[in-house]
């Protein structure tokens, strides 16, 4: 039973409590650069998750054979090989999205969130929890990318899921929802400053929810101890 609750803890950490983007504030470079639309965010999120899971599991498996002194170069090489896989896959199957994300796919190598998980978690844990950790952290990161992308897309050009055919194939062209049609795009939201402010708002929203939860728990305890 202990393992199960550990896994639960790992998932909760990755998705919310220790979210890579909202709490650790890692991987901000791709986060801020590619979240112009929800689909771009989702594409990069999936790629990052794949690399994160792969590197976490591999590092965990060979963790006893890695000399401590040169562990960082080894992590980087492992991550780089997974990134190469992702890059070739995206080049083959989602070529247009590959062009849009451009330099940010190879740059996944330098995403601190990935090497951070390898160092902080995978190099100290069994493969299965490492897998869970990679998945949870990746999905948590992806969700933030998607929410931020949706936010900027909505404010900037009045759509959600614009360009979904880039990732999902031609059938998904109709998924795009147009909320309002405008001649003037709200460029501020689409340009990098909009990403910074959007991320700031998301972090604030998360902290607000946490605070509210704490206050509720505190009040609940106070009532319980009074009665």
């Amino acid at each position, binding site marked *: 039973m202990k393992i199960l609750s550990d896994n639960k803890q790992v998932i909760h950490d990755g998705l919310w409590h220790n979210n890579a983007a909202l709490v650790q504030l890692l991987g901000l470079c791709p986060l801020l650069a590619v979240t112009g639309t929800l689909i771009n965010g989702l594409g990069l999120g999936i790629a990052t998750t794949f690399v994160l899971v792969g590197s976490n599991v591999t590092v965990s498996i060979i963790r006893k054979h890695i000399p401590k002194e040169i562990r960082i170069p080894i992590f980087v090489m492992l991550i780089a090989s997974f990134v190469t896989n992702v890059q070739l896959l995206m080049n083959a199957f989602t070529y247009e999205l590959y062009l849009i994300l451009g330099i940010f796919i190879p740059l996944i190598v330098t995403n601190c969130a990935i090497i951070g998980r390898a160092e902080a978690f995978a190099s100290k844990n069994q493969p299965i929890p490492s897998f869970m950790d990679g998945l949870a952290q990746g999905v948590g990161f992806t969700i933030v990318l998607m929410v931020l992308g949706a936010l900027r897309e909505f404010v900037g050009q009045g759509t959600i899921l614009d360009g979904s055919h880039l990732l999902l194939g031609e059938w998904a062209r109709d998924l795009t929802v147009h909320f309002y049609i405008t001649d*003037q795009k*709200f*460029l*501020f*939201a689409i*340009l990098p400053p909009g990403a910074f*402010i959007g991320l700031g708002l998301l972090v604030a929203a998360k902290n607000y929810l946490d605070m509210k939860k704490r206050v509720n728990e505190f009040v609940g305890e106070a009532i319980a101890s009074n009665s």
Partner: protein
Amino acid sequence: MKLSSPFFHHALPTSKVMQLVIAALIPGILLQVYFFGYGVIINLFLCGFTAIAAEFLVLKLRDRDPWSTIKDNSALLTGLLLAVAIPPTLPFWMSIVGTGFAIVFAKQLYGGLGFNPFNPAMVGYVLLLISFPVEMTAWLPSVELAAKTPSLSESMQLIFVGKTSSGLSVNDFRILADGYTMATPLDHMKTEHTLGKMSSEIISQNHFAANLKGWAWVNYGYAFGGIILLATKTIRWQIPASFLLSIVVTSSLLHWWDPELYNPAKFHLVTGATMLGAFFITTDPVSASTTPKGRLIYGALIGFLVVVIRNFGGYPEAIGFAVLLLNLAAPTIDHYTKPQVYGHQTEKESVHD
């Protein structure tokens, strides 16, 4: 007669200071209305009202007493400063977005008056400029050049509907009598330079001098208001003086280097928002530097950046960008220019003891 110790200053309350600043804006505003039409007045009401409404809303959300804060007139001033910085026919929702962003994001999210690191009006202006570059540079020509000028009701229709009842759009009012469209002198200068024309050629073009005249008068108006502010000691002399001097020195040097590429100081002083910037924008007591020496450095650097961005940057006007950049630097400038407290020694001297 009331007696008090000589080191007590009679500090005006914030609301009085803001009222004075608003009053000092009036000469410039009147000239701007004369040269660029009634749209300016509509924008003043629109932005002023939006600013107060936004302030009220945020303060309500923050569980503060809204009226005691709104009474200090700082939100109103932010709205008015933004209103005179935007084109007189800007669609109403853009003015509302800009003003709302200035108050909610640039001012209240940082903690309200006194805590904002950036000048709120300029944050609103820059937001609008980079979001809607076309609309934000669609200034009407100065009144003496315009083929037709919008009446008050036509200005209303342009701002709120985008077209007058007779079907004219903003661009129709921007056309001069000979069918030529005129941008602001700064904008025009920039575009013509990219086409390979020389400054002397551009200045001798039809209408350029007449359009520049309108802008110069507006600048004189704000300079006059600024002198009132200086005379009433509402603002200190350091920032405007070093700012203007720095513009003169930087632009003169560039002009001396290549007179056909870089315009002389007399052009930079009377175009764009130079005087509005010198006396009303850069002197914002919250976001500017606060030490005497620091103010000199702060103003000089803004003036330098303004000339640099105007000549080499992508946008025609630079006051907003330069002010925001130096807002970031103000705490550092203050740190290194702290005045000596009387009776204290510098570190160097105390080491010698």
